[in-house]
């Protein structure tokens, strides 16, 4: 459904399924609870390097999560409110992020793919920037992550 000329693509472990395409946004670890405003869709932790950044509709590139276990609720609420990311790439398996995505899927039938990338692939994603596509078909353990040129959106 998308014709694209990927600059690079690789496989990643799919923690949740879905198809997403959007601008890749790299951020330092964020606690969604206390750190993200689900009304405005912006990072509100004042000491966070990406303070003020919107995550709505983006492919979130975050090596690992941090902070409160209430972050599952805040992430699910952001997905419900369409102020959350369209897809998420992590390097470290994180229960709190995964549960937020799983429950949003159960309650609202949202399809936010959450994938685990190797640190080399993650670094390349962050360096290249531009538009990222995640294809994590239901029932499959492997997702395909592709980087497009930024002009392709």
């Amino acid at each position, binding site marked *: 459904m998308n014709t694209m000329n990927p600059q690079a693509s690789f496989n990643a472990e799919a923690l949740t399924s879905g198809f997403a395409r959007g601008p890749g946004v790299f951020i330092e670890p964020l606690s969604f609870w206390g750190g993200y405003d*689900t009304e405005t869709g912006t990072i509100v932790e004042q000491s966070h390097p990406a303070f003020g950044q919107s995550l709505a509709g983006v492919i979130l590139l975050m090596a690992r999560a941090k902070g409160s276990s209430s*972050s599952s609720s805040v992430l699910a609420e952001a997905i419900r409110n369409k102020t959350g990311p369209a897809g998420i790439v992590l390097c470290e398996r994180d229960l709190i992020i*995964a*549960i*937020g995505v*799983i429950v949003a899927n159960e*309650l609202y039938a949202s399809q936010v793919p959450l994938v685990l990338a190797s640190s080399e692939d993650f670094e390349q994603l962050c360096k290249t920037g531009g538009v990222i596509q995640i294809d994590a078909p239901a029932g499959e353990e492997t997702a395909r992550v592709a980087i497009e040129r930024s002009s392709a959106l």
Partner: protein
Amino acid sequence: MLQLSERDAAMLNGEAGSGVALAMRIVTRTANVMGADRLIDITSAHIDGCLYHGAASLDFVERFVQSETRVAVPTTLNVGSLDLIHPELYQGEQSTQRAAERLMKAHIELGCESSFTCAPYQLKHRPKLGDQIAWAESNAIVFANSVLGARTSRYGDFLDLAAAITGRAPYAGLHVTENRAAQILIRVADFGALPGRDVFFAALGFLLGKAAGASVGAIDGLPPDTTEDELKALGAAAASSGAVALFHGIGITPEAPTLDAACQGKPPARVIDVSLEELRAVRRHLNQAKPGDALVAVSLGTPHFSVTEFEQLAALFAAFSAPLACDFYVNTSRFVLWQLESSGIANTLASRGVQIVLDTCTYITPVMKKMSGLVMTNSGKWALYAPANIGVRVAYGSMNECVRSAFTGKVCFDEHDESTGQL
């Protein structure tokens, strides 16, 4: 690959109703993320999901209410956004108040106990050494694992209730013996004889969280007479500055009679020495005030105050006859308040102007009269979270210093020069 028991599969297939099936889908999907190969029975659950974070919080629990689902194991509730006993304290928006109140009551309809406390380990029945449980809320998790020796992973919203409804949890993480070995050893200088030592436990916890992240640490050098309240302060701070879910106090906590036991026979990967000067530096870092600065309030009881802490507080109050010079809040549970009512301490403190806050906590919801200015606390956790959450500045001192300061209306530290950190 996750193997389900026959009963698990029946629950997943909807044989126990659509609510149980939803809960089991969440448990099994989480088990897959964790790489667990099976589920295990749990004997209790503690739910953090009754604090309101938006419509998703309520949508989730109402799915279970509508399908007449009930929890399968004894289940306690963490704090909500409101003090249901003193609703007049709430100063936020009415629509949020209504939703937050519904969220708390909906959990009771599912069969949870109306405990509304972040210190479920202070309730009458608590888990024992080796019990497999599913607890949420960072300080409750670290206390259950470390001080009680019960076993829970670091669960959070949604999974906590799903585990309570199915009575099952993924066999992974801290449920597994091998994952409970300490990887980091912290050797702390002897601070047991210092005045106001409660702040040093929280300071040590803060350093533990920074050093350990999510890994397990063992602490050598805790005072032999360390109390549960002091371990509570240590754990709460460690779970705020890091993702600590378990620590061992050598010679103090149940899985650590010796260093060897705490590390399960392997040498620790890292050894960190902590000096008194480093503990004092944490205290200075958490404190934003100078001696003599005017206070709008003192807030104690994060995590919720125990009966013993109330007894200590009442004894400290007895040394002062003048009225309080600023607002004074203490957060605790209904269960602790009942005990204080029978001993007379609740009345004594109320007559001195102390506002006891139940069911919630002063750093997560607008219940204090003045929400700006300088507030003093002895809680490392409160000091870390309150500035961003509710917009106050924080003075950080021992319980004794908090009481003295409240009667003068100004920050006082015991024989302590904050500018140099010298005692």
